[in-house]
């Protein structure tokens, strides 16, 4: 695996965690599908995504975290860090083995049958949690807890693990990834977790990421007025922090505000003016009087 591939996956992970509905998750998956690491079969990927988006989400997340570990020299297997890496690698190996079989499947029916065999992160969580319990002072404890929260987000362990993270690791500068994962999580109260992080983290980057993530959670709850306030705060206080889909948190928050204010159901769509692939220009407003489907698409 090359470093470039690692970086691509880290970006995918980021897009993914910041995606604010199921459709949006797809773009990161599509990109991941192109990368060498997950090596999806051409043509098989789209049904993969439709079949098991939640499972795939886990795959991308763990690839991202694993990629980070790969950049360093491998620690000896006897150390907590070595044990952590071994666990992460074991899970990734299980994923790769799964995708080898999955990509070889010929029909949707076969693929559907296989989707139940995807390696479940909750089967690995107890070992990560054990590692964290045995090495509470080692930085690996934080990584192991984060693995559980970001991978096993639909499992039973997520609430207890979050509690430990907020209690023992609230000052960790990498807590932003936990905040992002709250956008898609079965955690009992993702909004409360985010509010705690915003209140107690000493790091601006973490606070900014948590505020933006809370905005996405509020949008998901159809509380657009609250979401607007949060996105305005993001622009005002954390605008320069990197994150979101296109650059900084300010860009991401502006995009969200535009969507809430101008692209909601019941609003007149803003005009689109541009050129087709042959350079001929045309406008959305040319089609007034007709029912129009706008399809943002790409051949991936």
């Amino acid at each position: 695996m090359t470093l470039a591939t690692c970086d691509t996956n880290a970006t995918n992970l980021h897009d993914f965690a910041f995606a604010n509905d199921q459709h949006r998750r797809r773009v990161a998956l599509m990109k991941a599908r192109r990368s060498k690491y997950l090596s999806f079969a051409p043509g098989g990927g789209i049904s993969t995504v439709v079949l098991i988006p939640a499972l795939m989400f886990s795959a991308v997340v763990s690839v991202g975290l694993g990629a980070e570990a790969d950049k360093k020299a491998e620690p000896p297997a006897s150390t907590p860090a070595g044990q952590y890496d071994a666990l992460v690698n074991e899970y990734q190996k299980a994923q790769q083995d799964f995708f080898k079989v999955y990509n070889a499947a010929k029909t949707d029916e076969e693929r559907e049958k296989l989707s139940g065999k995807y390696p479940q992160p909750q089967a690995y969580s107890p070992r990560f949690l054990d590692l964290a319990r045995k090495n509470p002072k080692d930085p690996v404890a934080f990584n192991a807890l984060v693995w559980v929260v970001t991978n096993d987000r639909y499992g039973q362990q997520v609430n207890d693990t979050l509690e430990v993270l907020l209690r023992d690791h609230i000052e960790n500068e990498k807590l932003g990834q936990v905040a992002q994962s709250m956008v898609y999580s079965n955690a009992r109260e993702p909004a409360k977790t985010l509010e705690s992080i915003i209140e107690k983290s000493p790091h601006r980057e973490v606070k900014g990421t948590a505020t933006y993530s809370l905005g996405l959670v509020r949008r998901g709850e159809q509380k657009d007025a609250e979401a607007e306030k949060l996105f305005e705060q993001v622009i005002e206080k954390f605008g320069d922090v990197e994150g979101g889909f296109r650059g900084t948190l300010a860009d991401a928050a502006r995009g969200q505000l535009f969507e809430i204010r101008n692209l909601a159901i019941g609003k007149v769509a803003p005009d689109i003016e541009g050129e087709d692939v042959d350079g001929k220009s045309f406008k959305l407003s040319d089609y007034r009087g007709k029912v129009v489907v706008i399809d943002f698409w790409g051949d991936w």
Partner: protein
Amino acid sequence: MYPHERSLVKRLEGKPFALLGVNSDPKDRVKQVIKKENMTWRSWWDGGDTSGPIATKWNVSGWPTIYVLDHKGVIRYKHVREKAMDDAVDALLAELQREQVGGTKSPK
């Protein structure tokens, strides 16, 4: 996606309906796809990647993203696919037809 869209466009030929794409592929690639998939509908070419001006303005971060607009340009449905997309379009076409029938009645 493509076969479904092709059949939607074909089925509604002659009706007050348009499918418009916003494409995020490199130009040579999208040209190939349009030809290969026999796409009869138009697409704006959005600069060759997912950060194009139209997708950015519309805050799109997942593909495909679908908006369905009524004949007045009002956004009526978002993120509908396949049969849900067809149903949305049919409902809006029926609404338009009712309005036109109602509108052409001579007032008494």
